């Protein structure tokens, strides 16, 4: 059996000095060679691993025949944004986890193949793209939030012939794809191309429009919208509630990443938004958000960047590949350590992080071993910047301004699992705001499911 092809990467020493994409993508030769490894299994277990059911063997077979356009069309039947998913899906837990070749540790590199065909098309002149045929103008539908859930819902509804308006609070569309995931992992030019395609489908994008403030849901009904999809994500940053958390030099990951990605603080002062970063940075947490923050801090010139995590390496929620990238780039892992206090100097700037050592106990409700502090093991690490990346919840703004929109104790909008229908007739929701998997592809799956449900709802109206 031929070896699994992997993408070339920029060397760690080099890449920590720039924001360019780390993984370089397959050449045509590599792509075809990798595609030839696929056994074209009858049962195709890989497809079951994909949350949106991309017809994996079919598109891979088309790559072996160098029918790249057809391969892309095949993926797009199920996944509207393969250039994005090919890059950021946790494939090792999804499609590739189920690949039969995975038994020997070398599953087909499905993500890289998906990315290859998507990039191949994006690089071509969009002029020779096929006109997408949409049906005649149907009802007006509003999509609130332009993350992967909203983008997918908008694309599907537009293809069905609905007049779709996408409302976004920020100054750019894309949600976390723009403000959260850094350029070196997902180039913004790719996201922009996908968004441009959406506009070509006839979707109108209204930026700087905060639903709940600029317009209420009632205003949308008055403006003639007959259904609404809410995909406002989980943008509310959690803090630890530790002493010293409001010291200068303490950021939420959201603030840190938004300044750098959306506002391009790494190009300060050409771009006016500043970021103040010290030499020793501690990032608290070990998910994708934490890895992105740590690797961003390195690229901004921090001398030493540590991940501080209360469990061990096995429990780290980030994608394996991103943990490896972070390690290769020199991020320091302070595992089994939990922060208890952020220490400041006289001027109120961070100068240290007091932690306690932890050990792992019995499994807790999350199925992971419970971290238990070891009494008397407190110690302080010298840091001048702390980035809190312990998770985020749904932003309560819209639900607060719309009391009829029912939410649970964590501010997640409650929906019917099958139909994505919320407590308000005609209002549907999906993506991170309804809880669930917190992955790009899961949000897209919700967007697609909700678009179908909205179509059914409007047809039966």
């Amino acid at each position, binding site marked *: 059996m031929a070896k699994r092809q992997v993408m070339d990467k920029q060397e760690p020493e080099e890449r920590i000095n720039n924001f360019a994409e780390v993984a370089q993508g397959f050449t045509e030769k590599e792509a075809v060679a990798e595609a030839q490894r696929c056994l074209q299994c009858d049962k195709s277990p890989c497809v079951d691993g994909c949350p949106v059911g991309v017809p994996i063997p079919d598109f891979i077979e088309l790559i072996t025949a160098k029918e790249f356009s057809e391969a892309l069309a095949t993926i797009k039947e199920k996944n509207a944004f393969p250039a994005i998913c090919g890059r950021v899906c946790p494939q090792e837990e999804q499609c590739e986890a189920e690949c039969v070749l995975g038994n020997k540790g070398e599953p087909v590199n499905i993500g890289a193949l998906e990315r290859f065909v998507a990039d191949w098309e994006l690089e071509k002149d969009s002029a020779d793209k096929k006109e997408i045929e949409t049906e005649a103008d149907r009802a007006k539908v509003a999509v609130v939030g332009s993350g992967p859930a909203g983008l997918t819902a908008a694309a599907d509804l537009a293809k069905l012939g609905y007049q779709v308006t996408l409302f976004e*609070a*920020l*100054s750019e569309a894309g949600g976390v794809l723009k403000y959260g995931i850094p350029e070196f992992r997902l180039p913004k030019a790719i996201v922009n191309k996908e968004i441009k395609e959406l506009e070509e489908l006839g979707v109108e994008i209204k*930026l*700087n*429009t*905060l639903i709940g*403030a*600029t*317009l209420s849901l009632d205003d949308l009904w008055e403006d003639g919208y007959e259904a609404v999809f809410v995909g406002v994500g989980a*943008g*509310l*940053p959690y*803090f630890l*509630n530790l002493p010293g*958390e*409001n010291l*200068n030099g303490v*950021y*939420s990951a*959201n*603030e840190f990443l*938004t*300044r750098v990605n959306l*506002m*391009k603080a790494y190009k*300060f*002062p*050409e*771009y*006016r*938004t*500043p*970021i*103040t970063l010290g030499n020793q940075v501690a990032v608290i947490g070990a998910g994708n958000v934490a890895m992105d923050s740590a690797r961003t801090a390195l690229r901004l010139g921090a001398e030493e960047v540590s991940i501080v995590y209360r469990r061990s390496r096995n429990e780290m929620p980030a994608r394996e590949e991103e943990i490896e990238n972070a390690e290769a780039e020199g991020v320091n892992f302070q595992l089994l350590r939990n922060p208890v206090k952020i220490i400041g100097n006289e*001027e*109120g700037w961070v100068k240290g992080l007091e932690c306690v050592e932890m050990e792992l106990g019995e499994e807790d409700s999350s199925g992971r071993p419970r971290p238990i502090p070891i009494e008397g093991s407190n110690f302080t690490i010298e840091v001048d910047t702390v980035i809190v990346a312990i998770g985020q919840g749904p*932003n*309560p*703004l819209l639900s607060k301004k719309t009391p009829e929109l029912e939410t649970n104790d964590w501010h997640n909008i409650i929906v019917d699992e099958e139909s994505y229908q919320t407590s308000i007739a005609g209002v549907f929701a999906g993506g991170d705001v309804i809880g669930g998997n917190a992955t790009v592809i899961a949000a897209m799956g919700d967007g697609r499911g909700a678009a179908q449900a909205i179509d059914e709802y409007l047809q039966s109206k």
Partner: protein
Amino acid sequence: MAKILAKRKLAPEIYFFEVAAPLVAAKAQPGHFVIVRADQTGERIPLTIVDYDREGGTIDLVVQRVGASTQELASLAVGDSFLDLLGPLGEPVEIEKIGTVVCVAGGLGVAPVYPKAKYLKEAGNEVINIVGARTAEMVIMKEEMSEVADEIYFSTDDGSLGHEGFVTEVLDSLLAEGKEVDEVIAVGPAIMMKGVAEVTAKYDVDTIVSLNPIMVDGTGMCGGCRVTVGEETKFACVEGPAFDGHLVDFDELMRRQGHYQSKEEKAEHKCKLEKEVE
């Protein structure tokens, strides 16, 4: 894009803008603010909605040049547009008839105080305005503030208009004379609001202040605007910007406002150099 329909210089470095923003005007209430960005490389800058005209679909903004980004905003002319304008943001202040309200405004704080004074007056309150600035030249919106007040006092650091000294001294003597005051609203530099809160604590008068921490999104997404109010952390952009002045940790606010000072100074230095070269 929000088009600038009118622009006036109110004082050195302080400009008034009338901006077309029909959706924002339709929803605006006293206490709301917007976040604007001049252009693609610009920073997101929070500005209070000073007044609004629902029918005309316009809002009024006042910008004081303090750094590079406000300089950029101030340099825009009639016919230009702000690339981005998001709002109305924040929680409006409740406007009810409560009796006698003293509005204290320091420097640019007049801009955010004005709509509150105006609508408090319309709601039937006795409104006393105390307006302060460094010098007479820097006192903005004198006529507007007089029109909406039953009594108005001025104070300047150099005595060029009204009392020589601080607005806090004017407020203190008013309360010391035994004036019955039901509420004080204070907006200005953090140090001034801190002083006002100290005075009113002495006389046990309810005090509302409007905080101006550094903000990014203005929608509750970054936490950069967090302030401590009564031992609790609040996100000023969604839970404020108005808070009970007796509970605010002003020292923390002032410290956090200085977060980017050294960076900004460097940038501004560069910006001035570029100007000289031009």
